[in-house]
């Protein structure tokens, strides 16, 4: 049941830091001596300047080398119960934003309003003391995270159970392996019951099993109606857990919308993930005097050009090209490549009207349909190419001409059903399974098999 009230309101928050200043070199002894005598005062001024910023303006494009704006004029709102991802390159301001909302550091400008109890998980095991036992650390860590003593007592058994270190709960934590420590710390954090949770890449630590556990727990938290802000570099997790994502870059909020759109924008920042590639002038268009490629497009069944494709629905790859000289037989095809660079398949145009026949001069539009429930989630790149067959010469090839993002909306009727965690495989066909049931067992308790 979604409550429409705002859980978090961020208004124009900016944060700046002063970074190290280069020392001036002194060329005379007198200057050096003078500087040393003067230096306590300079040092004091320098320390003071670390946090005094009265005259600065976040909107100006500063050329000062000593100031860095970690956040510039960030504004957004989050409804109660929303799960929002925050992504961006390292240094874009994500962690700073969480720190400000957690009250760990002050904003330089702007304000935020938070309704409800907020807990932040910026690190697992904050405050763990290695001399104390696991049991004692649960109480300490729980208290640091904001739980009252009674609450910890009530949930103690659950926490120990979740962590899997029951046998060692009374040994000092310094004897634990790093994995055990992380599991124990996360177990405490997982049993917080705040209204709003801020999570910062906590899931990056730990083995596969642990990461799975974390993801599942996070999904539970989201479903319980709590508001979640999730900072991560794991795009799959972000797309799966968050309905909405915010993209930060250089301290500015540059995108805020449905996760698949924003993630595509982020991923496509070095490569084009646009679903359309068109050439306007013959000089630019790939090809030669025999054939020219004018456009490559990705469309949905309804004919809309789109970067985001539902995993269950067919994907239409459209190639628009012009034959400039007659009597050639063409091989029109493309490669489909995933984000790891693995080629999933190569497919050739097989329309009976044109296959193996010399084509007349003119404009052609070839559309290829990739059936739904075949492709796996992720970003896929289309590299079209055209050859002539008599003799066989490749006339053009465009690497990564267009790309699209295959998304599973988890409605239950795709191949993954409602299963949340990472599924492997480069394809995700929806195959037919049949299961028969009978009460007659093969293994009996009093029979030797």
């Amino acid at each position, binding site marked *: 049941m979604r409550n429409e009230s705002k859980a978090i309101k961020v208004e124009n928050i900016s944060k700046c830091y002063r970074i190290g200043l280069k020392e001036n070199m002194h060329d005379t002894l007198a200057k050096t001596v003078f500087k040393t005598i003067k230096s306590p005062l300079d040092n004091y001024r320098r320390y003071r300047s670390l946090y005094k910023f009265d005259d600065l303006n976040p909107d100006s494009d500063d050329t000062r080398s000593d100031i860095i704006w970690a956040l510039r004029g960030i504004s957004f709102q989050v409804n109660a119960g929303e799960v929002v991802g925050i992504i961006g390159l390292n240094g874009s301001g994500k962690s700073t934003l969480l720190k400000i909302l957690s*009250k760990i550091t002050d904003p330089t400008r702007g304000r935020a309003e938070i309704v409800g109890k907020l807990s932040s998980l910026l690190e697992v095991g904050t405050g763990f003391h290695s*001399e104390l036992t696991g049991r004692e650390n649960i109480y*300490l860590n729980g208290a640091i995270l904001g739980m009252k003593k009674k609450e910890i007592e009530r949930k103690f058994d659950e926490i120990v159970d979740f962590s899997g270190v029951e046998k060692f709960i009374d040994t000092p934590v310094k004897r634990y392996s790093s994995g055990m420590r992380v599991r124990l710390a996360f177990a405490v954090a997982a049993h917080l*019951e705040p*209204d709003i949770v801020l999570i910062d890449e906590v899931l990056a630590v730990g083995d596969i099993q642990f990461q799975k556990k974390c993801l599942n727990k996070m999904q539970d938290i989201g479903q319980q109606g709590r508001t979640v802000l999730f900072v991560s570099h794991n795009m799959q997790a972000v797309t799966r857990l968050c309905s909405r994502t915010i993209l930060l870059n250089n301290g500015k909020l540059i995108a805020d919308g449905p996760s698949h759109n924003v993630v595509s924008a982020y991923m496509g920042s070095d490569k084009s993930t646009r679903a359309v590639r068109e050439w306007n002038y013959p000089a630019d268009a790939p090809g030669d005097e025999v054939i020219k490629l004018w456009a490559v497009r990705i469309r949905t069944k309804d004919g809309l050009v789109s970067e985001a494709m539902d995993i269950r629905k067919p994907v239409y790859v459209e190639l628009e090209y012009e034959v400039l000289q007659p009597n050639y037989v063409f091989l029109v095809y493309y490669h489909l490549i995933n984000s790891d660079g693995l080629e999933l398949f190569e497919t050739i145009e097989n329309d009976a009207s044109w296959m193996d026949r010399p084509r007349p001069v003119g404009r052609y539009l070839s559309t290829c349909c990739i059936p739904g429930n075949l492709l796996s989630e992720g970003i896929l790149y289309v590299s079209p190419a055209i050859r002539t067959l008599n003799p066989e010469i490749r006339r053009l090839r465009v690497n990564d001409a267009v790309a699209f993002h295959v998304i599973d909306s988890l409605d239950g009727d795709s191949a993954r059903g409602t299963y949340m965690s990472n599924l492997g495989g480069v394809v995700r066909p929806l195959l037919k399974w049949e299961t028969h049931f009978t009460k007659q067992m093969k293994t009996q308790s009093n029979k030797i098999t």
Partner: protein
Amino acid sequence: MSVIKFKNNTNTLNKRSGFITIVKPQSGWQFIDFRELKEYRDLFFSFVWRDVKVMYAQTVLGLSWAILQPAIQIMIFTIIFGKVARVSTDGVPYVLFSSVAIIPWSYIAQTMTQSSQSLISGQHMLGKIYFPRLVFPIAPVLSKFINFGISMLIISGIMVYYRVYPSVNLLFLPIFIIMMMLIPAAAGLWLSSLAIRFRDVQHIMPFFIQLLMYTAPIIYSASTIPEHYRILYSLNPLVGVIEGFRACLLGTPILWHYVWPGVIVGILLLVTGALYFRRMESIIVDVI
């Protein structure tokens, strides 16, 4: 930073919510947020308890160090200042004279040192989670008190030996105990927030504590201070505490007019310390 919390009855998220927190740049001076401290009460006691548990972790002698350490100091002082230097003690045996002062002084010195370091030793936590930073300098005030309690046993032992019977003055002891706790609290507030920005404080501390010891009538008696300087001397809150302890435990008259100046200075230091700490609180993470 400014954090304002007030109840909002229209919020139906869950029983405990209904809080609104406002995060904005800090402006001006603010005093201690007692409501926030009350909410983090459990955390505060967890910290104290952690300090106590960890203090003598993996030591053989454990808590008996709380007795051994002052005992050794008393012995050394008695030999050097009592027997060799023959400092005047108004007729009181030196052992008694010094132990009554050394026990509270140990508490003050240790607490002040730990409190001044508190933010620095807790710095890994500061950047990762929020709770009232006041917990850091104030937790040692309580955790070292346990040591103090145990080492008071030494005094009781010595008093029994010298057949000093408790007098009416003992009723005033709680006042001096409170003052004894107030001083390192005030010093801790000032020193910890200064230490986080200027690590010089850490280097000065041992030296500073040593000097402080001589400003209080621990080794010598306050009566040796010339009369016209005595009021000035009493501005030091340590003087009032030590003299007070002596008077309460040994039954000598309490000279209140030499205690009040110290109390006032102590309270002033505490209040200004709290204000300064709060002002520096929000920038701690940025300059650490």
